[in-house]
């Protein structure tokens, strides 16, 4: 039985919400049960935003992930908020381009990836979220980079092909950085 509860958190505008949707879509394409649930309070651009994603072989019970197997932290405030929630033995992916503090937990696996820096090398920091998703795929295998790539045009229906290609490159580089 496979179950991955994921929390993705960062600044509004970093694409944490759409990264979550993409992850759920990828899981769906790979035949898994999935759910996605956003924090829909007073979120705004520049504030913090987060979402829950579940990818599982069984039916998803609660879409609200309170004890995540994996947390993806895209900015500094998210580390303090979400590090304590990770399940013991779980995974914490940190965007080390923006998160300067060190995680304190010793009972979890930490993968630091310079998402912004890598994204900039690919072409734009806008796709730092894709680097993080690539890192997630590389570190967990819960979904494949290929699966996320296939999900891209389903989620971003009006995206230009060259933009999609950059996203795929970012995914691959993220996966490589996590290994």
């Amino acid at each position, binding site marked *: 039985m496979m179950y991955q509860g994921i929390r993705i958190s960062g600044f509004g505008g970093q694409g944490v919400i759409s990264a979550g949707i993409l992850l759920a879509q990828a899981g769906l394409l790979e035949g898994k049960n999935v759910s996605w649930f956003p924090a829909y309070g007073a979120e705004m651009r520049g504030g913090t935003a987060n979402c829950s994603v579940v990818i599982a072989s069984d*039916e998803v019970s609660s*879409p609200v992930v309170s004890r995540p197997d994996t947390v993806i932290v895209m900015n500094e405030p998210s580390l303090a908020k979400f590090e304590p929630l990770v399940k013991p033995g779980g995974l914490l992916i940190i965007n080390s381009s923006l998160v300067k503090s060190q995680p304190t937990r010793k009972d979890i696996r930490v993968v630091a990836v310079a998402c912004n820096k890598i994204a900039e090398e690919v072409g734009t920091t806008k796709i730092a979220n894709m680097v993080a998703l690539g890192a997630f795929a590389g570190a967990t295998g819960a979904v494949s980079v290929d699966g996320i790539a296939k999900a891209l045009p389903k989620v971003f229906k009006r995206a230009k092909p060259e933009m999609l290609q950059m996203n795929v490159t970012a995914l691959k580089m993220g996966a490589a950085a996590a290994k």
Partner: protein
Amino acid sequence: MGEKILMKGNEALAEGAIRAGCRFFSGYPITPQNEVPEYMSWRLPDEGGTFIQAESEVAAINMIYGAAATGIRAMTSSSSPGISLKQEGISYCAGADLPFFYANVVRGGPGLGNIAAAQGDYNQSVRGGGHGDYRVIVMAPNSVDEMGNFPKLCFELAEKYRMPAMVLADGILGQMMEPIEFKFERVDPAKLPAKDWALGNSAGRAKRVVKSYDLREGELEKINLRRMAAYRKIEQDEVRFEAKNCEGADLVVVAYGTSSRIAAGAIKLARDKGLKVGLFRPITLWPFPKKQLAGLAGKAKKLLVVEMSMGQFVDDVRLAVNGAIAVDLYARPAGIPSAEEVMAEIEKACQGIKAAPAATAAAPKQRGRPKGSKNKKTKAKRTVRKRAARKQAKRGRKGGRR
């Protein structure tokens, strides 16, 4: 029909309604249901329908009254405070025997409350909600898939019995995304049978009147009795529920909507530990699956109600089993339990069963006069208390009470 697509609950609800033939929507924004009117605003015109953002909830529901009176499939949606504002109009529609569909994507309350998921509007939904003597059909989805597929059922039931029908959802079901498959053919409104009561061009036929008002001596009661008979028939014929692993279960968890899917996760954990636990989920909250719940009494040893409210839903469960089986309550008013928390309650309830097996068998006759706040107590504690109470009562009879 066809492939599974990833969709938000609110959007699935709106798309489901359109595919079911809805061609009129009026509403007023409120979180967490805003995606419904947003989706309707661009999607309905494509289908030749009408979307109106009204100036208020009161205006929106009265537009529904007008639209429904012409026989068109009309819908409105809102969240808790907005639904309260619409209750007068819903009562008028019920009084005028108008079929329409509405959804309440419930948020925390009372008052403005918060915008998180809750189940505090249970009583308002299943007891009518507005003034006067009436019912509405209440369907409680627990997935995005059901959010998308229930609007069609609601329209059909509403038209069959000429009354309002609603979906009772919550912030989680509205906001979450999940795969959905629309399991029905698109309804072409032009091909729906003509309604012999609907208003419109009256040339060449007798005039028709749609109203919720009758001042003739004794007439209103006749109308209400006719309506009552229809309600009885609905209670006979239209009950829907889901029972999972209830056969041979010691404990059956009873929950609806979001609570039921969280409970399902908890039950999985419990069964992995060897506990015999089942799930009973009413899908229609009115009509309520009374008989089916009562049927659990001889089989399971106890029921555990899980609801995201103080204890509204549990009242209907207790009425249904009528004292024949112990009913525990795990109440989370404006809180969202985790599967682990529900699991802890399941374990607690199961311990109660083991601790007092004899008392459980003798329970039905004793449990006639529940006293106030005993509900949350486990079976064992309740039995001990009862014994003490009986002793005290004896003493009271002999020695007088101070």
